[in-house]
């Protein structure tokens, strides 16, 4: 990949700046001066700054307000945890489907049309009596948008990002789930573009429920591994 050309796919992640201009820790040089200009109001009200940014870009006809609304509408009303919940519910009732999910979740989601930005390269893992999975992104807040929508505030919190890898049991305990010592905790740190979904354990006493009824029991946080289903 050349420095000049950044694919849309890499747009957010791949810096177009030379590394030499981004070395942190020293206050001098042109990059620093530019940053200072950019951030002269760093402590001011972010709500006002956000509105100003949107207003200026709209007035310059560089963005379309209806497009911003469409983004929010999409994640608020179309794609969200209900998508993942249905996948989980089906996996509880159909062992072949579950097996295919564990072997190649991406292929199954492609068949079902549940792909999209930030989450096509999907891996699905399963909890059991003796294994508990927990998903985190220590570097940022990578999350499987096509299946769960936008990540919750707590998932993006510094404490969750910092502690989940060193003290997953402490995090789970704080979140209300105490694990036995002999349960294996598997933490998945989403450092690349692979996204993770956890199949929680199926609650007992749900043998007679339909897939739709089962899906209604599946919480967002259980698919991150942050809670067990009662």
């Amino acid at each position, binding site marked *: 990949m050349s420095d000049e050309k*950044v694919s849309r796919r890499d747009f957010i992640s791949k810096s*177009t700046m030379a590394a030499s201009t981004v070395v942190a820790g020293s206050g001098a040089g042109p990059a620093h001066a530019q940053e200072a200009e950019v951030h002269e109001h760093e402590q001011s009200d*972010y709500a006002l700054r956000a509105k100003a940014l949107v207003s200026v*870009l709209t007035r310059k006809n*560089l963005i*379309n307000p209806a*497009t911003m609304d469409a983004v929010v509408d999409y994640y608020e009303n179309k794609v969200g945890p209900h998508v993942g919940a249905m996948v989980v519910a089906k996996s509880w009732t159909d062992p072949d489907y579950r097996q295919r999910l564990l072997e190649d979740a991406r292929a199954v989601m492609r068949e079902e049309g549940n792909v999209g930005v930030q989450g096509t*390269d999907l891996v699905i893992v399963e909890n059991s009596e003796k294994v508990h999975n927990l998903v985190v992104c220590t570097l940022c807040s990578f999350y499987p948008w096509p299946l769960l929508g936008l990540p919750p505030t707590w998932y993006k919190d510094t404490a969750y990002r910092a502690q989940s890898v060193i003290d997953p049991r402490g995090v789970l305990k704080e979140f209300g789930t105490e694990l036995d010592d002999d349960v294996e905790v598997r*933490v998945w740190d989403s450092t690349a573009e692979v996204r993770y979904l956890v199949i929680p354990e199926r609650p007992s006493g749900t043998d007679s429920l339909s897939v739709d009824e089962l899906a209604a029991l599946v919480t967002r946080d259980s698919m991150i591994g942050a*809670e067990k289903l009662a």
Partner: protein
Amino acid sequence: MNTIHDLGGMDGFTLPERDQDFPLHEEWERQIWGLALAVWSKPIPGYPGGLRADIERIPPEIYLNMSYYEKWVWAEEVAVIRGGLATRAELDDPDGSLSRPDIGGFTPATPADVVAFMEADDSYERPATTEPRFQPGDEVVVMNNHPAGHTRCPQYTRGHRGIIQAHHGVHGFQDDEPRDAGEQHLYTVTFTAGELWGDRGNPNDRVNAELWEYHLESVTG
């Protein structure tokens, strides 16, 4: 960069409640996030990429006191100003007179554009032109390097031994350095908690991270 965003393993923070909200609470959060996706789906000419790296460069003492969407406001301001699309003065007086950037006949992303973008097959896997160096089950050690640019190799994994758990094919390499690393085989590497954290790790626990071939070295013996 060993900046504050690389948080894995740091103590001293207090966990929040597990809120159950839709995460876009405020109107400005909806706008800034809509803006991010709109521009991502159809970049404005001149608008630089690398917003994630800009977020990582936020000074630590500020970063830790910002909410998630405040970080995006910061990064989008940096991008817009750096890309010459607006000046600081314009952002400070959004109702004042505006210059028109010289970007030709650009039409911004429409709702249909952004929905198509959000629904598109977003796989980062690319055609493999090389054989993978590692196979699941292989023992590897993570390169101990502390580059000055953006890296996806978390500090807590560096220098540690793990086992290749999965091979994901070839993915675009996201680190700034080396510039000539090209595309790389991507793996999930499993570390025991003891390997990473010593006595603090529960012997039953594992931490998995995705690392590119560039980050990994063979363990012989």
